[in-house]
């Protein structure tokens, strides 16, 4: 039985701390026994009391403090308790962290990692449930990494810490409690799974060993299990095979695996939990239609949250967010356009 994703991240943090004494952790409520609001930082403050700094509730400043540490040779990890609070630090990100290296003519680097949980489905309401990574895609000079439960979470976190660029490491609240389902012998359960090369690789899944499929679904993070479930349902209910790509990195966006899959399937559906407009799917769709025009048999379709808040009541939250039915419906609707 695989470990849970939260546990995998926690273990990775311990290993990273052991390996590199330039690594520091900053954030709210980090000290043991609490170990961070989602417990991902448990045990670190006990083992490395000097390198784990529990902070005041001062997100804007914490982004700057982390940047200062990074500019002077350390490798800080900043834990932002809820991804929604990244908004408090965006001046530091947009006008500092993302620019220092370029505007100081490549003479400095800012190797910091911001770890933060995004996502909804826990009834936390409009200000604690967003998927704001979409806003970060428009900020050149940073990396945005967003592992799914099938990614090698520990390796990716270690890669982020070793990265010389500032990295947003976007976690997902529900993922923490789910098993880290790594491919074994090229399979995750029934599915064939191909992992890309290099850092922050994408994963490509197929239910029929990459025999003919009718569409590619591209997603990331917490939407992967829903997308895989939709893919399974499409097979069982409609005998429609799809390929599913789970991106590892959203910025810079490497669409290689998506383009390869689209070359096979001719159709693409993007799936994300954040709101539709200005989302990750928009950039993917814009690129894929430009780069794979002749492969596409129909327009790229997007599945995302309704443009609006994530309401608190479960029934309303469910209505606002994309679910398995929505994905299945989007694939089914492909038949009806283009081709």
């Amino acid at each position, binding site marked *: 039985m695989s470990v849970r994703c939260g546990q995998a991240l926690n273990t990775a943090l311990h290993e990273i701390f052991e390996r590199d004494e330039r690594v520091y952790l900053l954030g*709210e*409520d980090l*000290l043991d*026994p*609490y170990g961070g*609001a989602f417990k991902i930082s448990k045990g670190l403050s006990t083992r490395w009391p000097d390198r784990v700094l*529990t*902070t*005041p*509730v*001062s997100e*804007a*400043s914490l982004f700057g403090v982390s940047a200062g540490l990074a500019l002077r040779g350390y490798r800080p990890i900043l834990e932002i308790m809820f991804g*929604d*609070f990244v908004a*408090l630090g965006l001046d530091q990100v947009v006008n500092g962290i993302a620019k220092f290296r370029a505007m100081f003519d490549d003479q400095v680097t800012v190797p910091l990692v911001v770890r933060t949980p995004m996502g909804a489905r*826990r*009834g*936390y*309401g*409009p*200000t*604690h449930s967003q998927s704001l990574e979409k806003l970060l895609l428009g900020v050149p000079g940073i990396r945005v990494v967003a592992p799914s439960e099938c990614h090698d979470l520990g390796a990716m976190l270690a890669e982020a810490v070793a990265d010389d660029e500032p990295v947003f490491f976007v976690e997902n609240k529900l993922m923490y409690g789910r098993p880290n389902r790594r491919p074994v012998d090229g399979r995750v359960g029934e599915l064939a799974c191909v992992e890309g090369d290099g850092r922050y690789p994408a994963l490509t899944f197929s239910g029929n060993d990459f025999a003919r499929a009718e569409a590619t679904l591209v997603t990331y993070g917490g939407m992967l299990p829903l997308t895989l479930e939709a893919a399974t349902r499409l097979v069982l209910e409609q005998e429609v095979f799809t390929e599913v790509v789970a991106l590892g990195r959203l910025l810079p966006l490497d669409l290689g695996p998506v383009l390869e899959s689209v070359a096979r399937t001719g159709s693409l559906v993007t799936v994300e939990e954040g709101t539709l407009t200005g989302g990750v799917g928009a950039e993917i769709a814009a690129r894929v239609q430009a780069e794979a025009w002749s492969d596409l048999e129909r327009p790229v379709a997007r599945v995302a949250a309704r443009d609006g*808040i994530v*309401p*608190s*009541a*479960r*029934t*309303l939250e469910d*209505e606002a967010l994309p679910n398995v039915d929505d994905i299945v419906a989007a694939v089914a609707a492909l038949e009806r356009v283009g081709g």
Partner: protein
Amino acid sequence: MSGPDTQAEARRLYGRMTLIRRFEETLLELFSAGKLHGTTHTCIGQEADAVGVISCLEPERDVVVSNHRCHGHYLAFTDDVDGLLREVMGRVGGVCGGKGGSQHLFAGNFYSNGVLGGTVPVAAGMALAERERGSGAVVTVFVGDGTLGQGVVYESLNIASLWDLPLLVVVEHNGYAQSTPSRLQLAGDVEARAAAFGVQTARHDTTDVLEVRAAAREAVEHVRGSGRPFFLVLDTYRFSPHSKGDDHRAPAEIAERRLRDPLTVVAGLVDDAERDEIAASVERRLSEAVEQALAAPAASLEPVAP
């Protein structure tokens, strides 16, 4: 300090505090029973702040802006048990239709938001509006000690002082931000942080609702009279966990603070019969509310017939 007026008052305030206490205990029970989803932050132990301060306000005119720990403020200001319960439970009839949930409430002159600090400039802007309108209203914003970590609080104190805004900032200083004790998040002196901006301050270490009320009355009168901001620090303690579980504070520390439970402190002014009557009526009210809420349909985007 214990004439008949004070006693009647104490009874009223005690009743309000009891309602809040039992409301929130009920929420925690519903959570444990799996009948609630989402999150909640109870103010169990801090009820004297909400009730004492808000008893000095005029709900028709004054404005309250609250934070994540807002149930007590909301009930003290509106007495709307059903609207709040259904909101937290995600049922039809919730005061924000289930959209906001526990931390994001609006009704009349009451507003809350769950992101710390950002409420203070919003309250300052409301105070500016009320000043311009000449309503004589006081805008009260409740924040916790941890929220003093947010820079926007100081930006707003500066603006409130520069512009003579009728803003009352109440700091409920319960010694913790989530799991983090004050000494790890607050350097220097809390009152001095506001005084530096030319804002009048006061600090009271009390869980006696009558003392809170007296302190708040002075503060409210100062704001209403001078049109200038006031910064009122109330030392208090929460008995309940930050949210639903995960409390690592020393049991002895909690036990010691329970000796100053606001419900016990003021209880001397309420006689046994009254206390029983209050308890009974609160239980009745809450159990009816829960029953009806559980029977109500889940919140829905479709408009509901009134």
